[in-house]
């Protein structure tokens, strides 16, 4: 059975002081710290790219677990802000940098904040269908490339990061149940226009608070689990206020749902793996992950520890 074996991440060295940004936008510092919940944002520097950040995440993975590049049969990279406009697909560039075998499938997935939950399922299903044993799921979506420097609603929110998850036939966690949803009619809430990100904060907020809790409850029902059966709830780290209220509306015990975005901001499809990497140290038995954003797209999955 395939599943998550290990995870590693990379944060670029560049940092933006979000409280200084607050001053620039004439926004209350306390509002930025307490409501948005972000004090520092990691930012790509000139030398950073989706490929270099992904490679850095892979190097970090190799410090945790033994990975023989010759064994990798599948590389999937989730981004909507790829290098070279996505042509070639960035997973092929990662493949080249890592010197992987030609017998290795590579493709990119174009999803935002739901991308990690989708990506895990896609990679596992693709690998299972094709008899593969080891694959890599990368996430890296540097929104700094599309931020409008005059738009405080997005500049105060998004950080750059990358992650890599080793999917293998020696898993620590396997998929129990998942749901995937889309509200394409609401996609204007988060879109790129003239190469700049536009966000309707109210629409995204309403979506997160109204639709995500329903999906979480549906996934629990389909897995025949109750809230108390889940040890850890990893929700996409959009903003502190949105998270706190989504958690409250879903009826999730707050102590089981970490909010850790003060030093990272919203890192899009990397936010859940960044959290998961840290939380795996405590070996939670049952983990629910829920990603939601661009699309509007949302996905929730439950993973259980392999005994």
């Amino acid at each position: 059975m395939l599943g998550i074996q290990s995870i590693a991440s990379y944060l670029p060295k560049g940092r933006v002081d979000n409280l200084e940004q607050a001053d620039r936008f004439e926004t209350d510092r306390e509002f930025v710290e307490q409501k948005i919940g972000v004090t520092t944002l990691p930012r790509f520097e000139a030398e950073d790219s989706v490929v270099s950040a992904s490679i850095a995440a892979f190097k970090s993975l190799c410090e945790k677990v033994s990975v023989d590049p010759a064994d990798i049969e599948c590389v999937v990279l989730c981004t909507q802000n790829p290098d070279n406009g996505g042509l070639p697909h960035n997973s092929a560039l990662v493949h080249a940098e890592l010197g992987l075998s030609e017998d290795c499938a590579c493709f990119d997935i174009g999803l935002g904040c739901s991308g990690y939950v989708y990506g895990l399922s896609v990679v596992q299903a693709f690998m299972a269908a094709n008899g593969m044993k080891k694959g890599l799921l990368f996430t890296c979506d540097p929104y700094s490339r599309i931020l409008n420097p005059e738009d405080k609603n997005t500049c105060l929110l998004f950080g750059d990061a990358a992650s890599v998850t080793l999917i293998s036939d020696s898993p620590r966690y396997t998929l129990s149940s998942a749901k995937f949803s889309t509200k394409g009619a609401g996609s204007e809430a988060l879109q790129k226009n003239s190469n700049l990100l536009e966000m309707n904060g109210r629409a995204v907020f309403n979506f997160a608070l109204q639709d995500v809790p329903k999906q979480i409850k549906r996934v629990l029902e389909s897995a025949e689990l109750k809230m108390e059966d889940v040890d850890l709830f990893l929700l996409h780290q959009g903003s502190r206020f949105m998270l706190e209220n989504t958690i409250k509306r879903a009826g999730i015990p707050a102590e089981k749902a970490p909010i850790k975005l003060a030093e990272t901001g919203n890192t899009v499809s990397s936010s859940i793996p960044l959290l998961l990497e840290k939380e795996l140290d405590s070996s939670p038995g049952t983990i629910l992950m829920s990603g939601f954003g661009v699309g509007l797209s949302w996905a929730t999955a439950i993973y259980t520890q392999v005994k």
Partner: protein
Amino acid sequence: MNREEAVKVVMSMLEKNVEGLEMSEDKMGETLENLGVDSLDVMLVVMDVGEAAGVTISDDEAEALDTPEKIVEFIAKQ
């Protein structure tokens, strides 16, 4: 929903969602900003009021609701 019920809903949702805010009739005409309701609180209050009153408030309509009284008027006429 009549005005009295609408006032009750709006006041209770403001007090529920905005820490330290105590509502009274004489504050209904004040701007939400002056009452210490920040932009994120406003989104939450409008959502909760809409759900409690059983009305849908579009983004454009919500933008215009900048006092408790305007929220009351909006839901009372639905």
